[in-house]
């Protein structure tokens, strides 16, 4: 047996410490890469070239930059305001209902392989988040930043959870093909991608139930958070009033 070589793990420790200390993630990741390369004895020049090669080969990850000009222009002409107004005109539209409807549509379409039908840049920022925020604002008036952030984060989470747990049902998706290839490489025959896709269904249903249950409770959560915020705000206002009253007395 070879003895345990833990040096390649030093990069993981750098990442955990770096994120915990809240250093800039770009810096943390680069330092983790440099230290890992150094720990296992890759020479510096080829390590830098390896950085460059991998960075270049991953350029398609930046393709969302092409979507932004369209979204930015539409926002300049009131897209988010329109989304809010549109939701306000629908009777019975609540944040939870909008997010739940989106979740179901997104998970089902992902299961059919329509992964690029939506996404964080295409749909969540310009449409889903403003609609979800708009529904609550419709009920309670102008919202504090923390409530808007909470709803926005839930909108982003809906997209992630729905697409992750829907996509593996679709048998032509990369993950399923990867699993199939792995089994074949390791000498396990007779498994079709279809079998793998079928076994993704129970977890996909569980994800649907768990997340819709959480969304159903979101409304109550938002109501409480708003009440708390108002209480705090009125308390602060009262304190400021007290302070200024005191100040006036002192000056008098």
């Amino acid at each position, binding site marked *: 047996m070879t003895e345990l070589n833990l040096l390649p793990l030093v990069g993981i420790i750098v990442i955990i410490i770096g994120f915990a200390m809240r250093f*800039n993630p770009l810096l943390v990741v680069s330092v983790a890469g440099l230290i890992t390369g150094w720990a296992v004895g890759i020479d510096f020049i080829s390590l830098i070239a390896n950085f460059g090669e991998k960075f270049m080969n991953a350029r398609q990850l930046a393709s969302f930059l092409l979507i932004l000009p369209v979204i930015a*222009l539409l926002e300049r*002409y009131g897209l988010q305001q*329109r989304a809010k107004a549109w939701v306000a005109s629908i009777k019975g539209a609540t944040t939870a209902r909008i997010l739940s409807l989106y979740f179901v549509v997104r998970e089902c379409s992902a299961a059919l392989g329509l992964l690029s039908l939506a996404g964080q840049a295409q749909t969540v920022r310009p449409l889903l988040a403003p609609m979800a925020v708009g529904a609550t604002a419709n009920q309670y008036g102008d919202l504090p930043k923390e409530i808007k952030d909470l709803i926005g*984060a839930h909108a982003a989470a809906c997209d992630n959870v729905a697409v992750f747990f829907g996509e593996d049902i679709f048998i032509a998706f990369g993950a399923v093909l990867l699993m199939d290839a792995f089994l074949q490489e390791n000498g396990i025959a007779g498994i079709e991608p279809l079998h*793998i896709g079928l076994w993704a269904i*129970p977890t996909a249903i*569980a994800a649907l139930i768990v997340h819709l249950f959480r969304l159903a409770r979101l409304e109550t959560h938002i109501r409480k958070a708003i009440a708390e915020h108002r209480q705090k705000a009125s308390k602060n206002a009262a304190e400021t009033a007290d302070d200024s009253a005191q100040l006036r007395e002192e000056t008098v």
Partner: protein
Amino acid sequence: MTPVSHEQHASALLTIENIYLLIGFVVMFLVVKTLQDKQHPKRFTTALFWFLFGSVFVFGDASIALVGEQLTYLWVGVAVIIIALLAGLNLVSMGHYELPEEQAKQQDAERLGNKLFIPAVMIPMVTVICTLILGDIKLAGWHLFDQQHVTLSALTLACGLALLASWKITGGTPVRALSESRRLVDSIGWAAILPQMLAMLGGVFIVANTGTAIQELVTLFISPDNRFMLVALYCIGMALFTMVMGNAFAAFPVMTAGVALPFLIQGHGANPAALVAIGMYSGYCGTLMTPMAANFNIVPAALLDLKDKYQVIKVQIPTALTLLFINILLMYGVIF
């Protein structure tokens, strides 16, 4: 030139190289706009940050053709280090943007009505339709789309068409659209580059055999007779390793070859299809909980301008942990 190589290269109108060039030009336009922004607190360093990033797209492929792969990868690697330093030293920031009053936007919104949604909805719709219908279409022997990157080509075409549509609907020109996008790109900031940085780190981990080290470490804690512990270790290991790598695909071969294959499939005769399907989903539970999955968790937080960059992750943790627990029980129940 042989016909075969003709088929492989330059046989598409919208090649991946052209898409990279396009992204590069968009970024370079933002660099010029940043330099023109006299009220920008960190004008030059922010411009340098985006210039280096844009260079990889504008000059990358030309550089490979001119000076070869090795030299190109080297300067890109150096550029990446400088990018990380600029971000790490907090030299990249938001600039100054002229925004219309909320009231003016409200008026525009009322005037334009639901037509405003058309270009936004066009992007996903056109992408899907083009992927399905135009994927194999040829014009005079040329593929319309790069055959290796059909979805990305379709997305690019969809963005172009949506840009024209939004020009027609709002009256704002494409140049204006690009200028406006600086506000969005700046608010995303360094997070826009994180996914590529992580792909880079994944590459280094592979070269450094980090996976093997984890596998050896994990093997120390396994008692090969305890079925439930093996299942739990595989599922939790998939989630944890995915959190570190930011990608369940990277964690999957390591954890499956290290734990599932020898102990569960060969040792206990588990059903492979159910095992790998549920195992991969356990990895996805990890994806929901890690900043390393930047394009799912950190980029949206920036896109939505959340105060807490980790709030999307925090919202996802209860769902992720519940599903991980369900996956463990489900796997234990069905694979034996």
